[in-house]
């Protein structure tokens, strides 16, 4: 039986040689993402801003402009309406109202009445109604940030203990690279950033570190094995040895996620999208960012001394 081999047995790509180019790409991604985050910003969902989200489904394709005019004529601030997956499925977002709970409730009632009136004679299926108060939104934002920073620290500490400091720092830089890239992706597409997408960013961090650790593991092993090899050559060898695995795993994971993206339903799309983009970026970064960083941090000085060589 002939088995499928996506990557030939012995590869010898010069990844390290391309590192200047890779740095330029990475830098462009980082600067672009930060720029987008600063000037365009994330489209924060109601989880973080507070407000009300209503998903409705109707039988016939609704007349969006009329509905938009009707709802925005209620005097409840800007109400955004967008199609959600299909033309007869709508997502309606109402901002946080100034005032106490009865004001919020009255606002939602008003919106519902207006929607029902707009589809007179037709049954409106309220598939989802979510209300998040401003206080909770704030808390969720803080808790999310805390979870992110603590998991970074936890991962850094773990790698520090298991490897040397250069590995830990390089891994965390790669991690920030990927997380910022995913955030930038969300700023670019302008898709709603909510709790689930935050979880996706964290997961990308987890996956990216997983990928990086696998390459580092091999680097560490080769450092012990080939005491005289130049560092650049050694890093290249390590990446090439792990290339087949990196491609296989990333490919299966992305395949699975594509299934989830296509068939998993609208609600989970944003989450899946973030993961797919993040995993592609994470694969790139573990090859082109994390490993070359070890060169910069000089995990081993090139031209090892004669003494060391004889000692082995």
């Amino acid at each position, binding site marked *: 039986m002939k088995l499928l081999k996506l990557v030939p047995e012995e590869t010898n790509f010069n990844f390290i040689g391309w590192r200047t180019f890779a740095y330029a790409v990475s830098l462009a991604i980082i600067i672009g993402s930060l720029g987008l985050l600063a000037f365009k910003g994330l489209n924060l969902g109601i989880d973080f801003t507070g407000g009300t989200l209503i998903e409705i489904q109707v039988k016939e394709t609704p007349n969006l402009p009329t509905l938009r005019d009707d709802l925005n004529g209620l005097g409840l601030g800007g109400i955004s309406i967008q199609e959600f997956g299909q033309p007869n499925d709508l997502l309606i977002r109402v901002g946080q109202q100034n005032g106490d709970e009865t004001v919020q409730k009255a606002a939602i009632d008003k919106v519902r009445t207006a929607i029902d009136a707009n589809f007179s004679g037709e049954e409106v299926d309220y598939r989802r109604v979510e209300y998040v108060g401003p206080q909770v939104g704030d808390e969720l934002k803080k808790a999310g940030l805390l979870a992110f920073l603590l998991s970074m620290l936890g991962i850094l500490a773990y790698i520090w203990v298991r490897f040397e400091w250069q590995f830990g720092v390089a891994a965390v830089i790669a991690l920030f690279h990927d997380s910022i890239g995913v955030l930038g992706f969300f700023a670019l597409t302008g898709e709603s950033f909510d709790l689930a997408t935050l*979880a996706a960013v964290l997961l990308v961090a987890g996956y990216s570190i*997983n990928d990086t650790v696998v390459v580092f593991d091999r680097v560490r092993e080769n450092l012990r094995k080939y005491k005289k090899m130049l560092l650049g050559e050694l890093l290249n060898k390590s990446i090439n040895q792990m290339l087949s695995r990196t491609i296989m795993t990333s490919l*299966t994971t992305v395949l699975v*996620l594509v299934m989830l993206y296509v068939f998993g339903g609208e609600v989970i799309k944003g989450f899946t999208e973030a993961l797919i983009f993040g995993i592609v970026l994470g694969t790139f970064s573990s090859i082109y960012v994390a490993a070359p960083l070890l060169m910069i941090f000089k995990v081993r000085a090139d031209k090892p001394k004669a003494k060391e060589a004889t000692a082995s």
Partner: protein
Amino acid sequence: MIHFSNWKIFLIVAVCVWGVLFTVPNFIAPETRASMAENMPGWIPSQAVNLGLDLQGGSHLLLQVELGDVIKEQSSDLLAQARTELRSERIGYTRLSPVPNGFRVSLRDSAQADAAKKILRKLDERTEIKTLEEGTYEVAFTESGINDINTQTLSQSIEIVRRRIDETGTNEPVIQRQGDDRIVVQLPGLDSPERIKELLGKTAKLTFHLVDQDGGIDTFSLPSRDLQGQELSVKRRAILTGDMLTNASPNFQNGAPVVSFRLNGQGAKRFCDVTRNNVEKPFAIVLDNEIVSAPNINEPICGGQAIISGRFTVQETSDLSLLLRAGALPAPLTILEERTVGPTLGRDSVEAGKLAGMLAFALVLVFMVISYGLFGFFAAIALCFNMFLIFGILSWLQATLTLPGIGGIILTIGMAVDANVLIFERIREEMRTGRSLLSAIDSGYKNAISTIVDANMTTLIAAIFLYSFGSGPVKGFAVTLTIGIITSMFSAIMLTRLMVSLWLKYKRPTELTI
């Protein structure tokens, strides 16, 4: 690395069987499951995975108990009580004013200090008295006193919320405390929580007061519903309070909707005495700081039964009776968060998740087999058991499966393969260096395992932080991810390896296509 002792084989097989056993109830219809749970011994698993509200449809409410209001109220009660007691003991004071969590009093004559202190000390055991200067004291709830009050308020609120929801006949509500001052209410299958929100939005504090007609002391003004918000002055002391009611039901009097109620012994007696002494005078029925109505007492009411009239609609009388039966909330509730998912969306999500999951699963199986041949087939079998284990553990723990949770499981399918890929790629490498089959497999496993552990530990760290700080949907995701990481490590390191080892033992192969 390749040899397995018998007890280890037994253990691995036992774990797999356990996973299958606990997954089976998920394929059985709910009715059959219920009768299984009743008729079969307890150790036979009969629980299916607990679907989250986003999958089965339903309403999730996060309520805040306004604890500060209770302390404020108790402090002002304390002050009122002190005023009454000091007066009845004829102890004069020049000033009696509220402070945070208590009040401050200055005596007119410091010779009465001892008597006054005795009274102040007896007011409430959760307070302490501070002497600010000779004859001036501050009485305030202690920190532990406030904690006691808060804990009590919260548990009482939960109880009342439960009773009110039970009265509406909602199926299997989950009502839980969250943090120090919050209550989570989950109402499966409810796609319009408006009525419940309405019911929880009222404290339903009912009191009866005499209307103040002679401008006496110790009175306060409240808006009246009858008189279009005009205020009416009533005596502070309540004749009756809501907790003296034993029953309440909607009724009609002269064609108008009213609430009729029945009083307990103590309440009936008090009501009888007061009405006898105040015939021809009006009294006020106060609900949540609003006078519902202020009828005249025409004759003494001594039967322990009476009605509340007002400008009610039929719906209002039935709601009010429900609230009175369930009791008053000790503190107002605010809705902080509401997430309601209708049954159609829930069903669609489950269907979509199933479809995506199965396709992803099939794709990965095929991919493994065409990439790694026989070993890929072993890995595919292990992946099947991995799924059984994940669902088995979810059913056993009765953890809640949410939509992001399904995402977590599907992602695990992708990642579970990683451990196998690492091992197989390593075996390929070892074989290329010219080792014998046995030694290549042996050192392949040996060398790959530390990488697998390192890689999974980092993901596990991220999942644990997600679980600790995430809420709702994120938590559901973290749970399945954590379970998935653990079971996939088991299936790759133990189960696949066991199959490889048995294959080596019984087939005694000399070569392998990998």
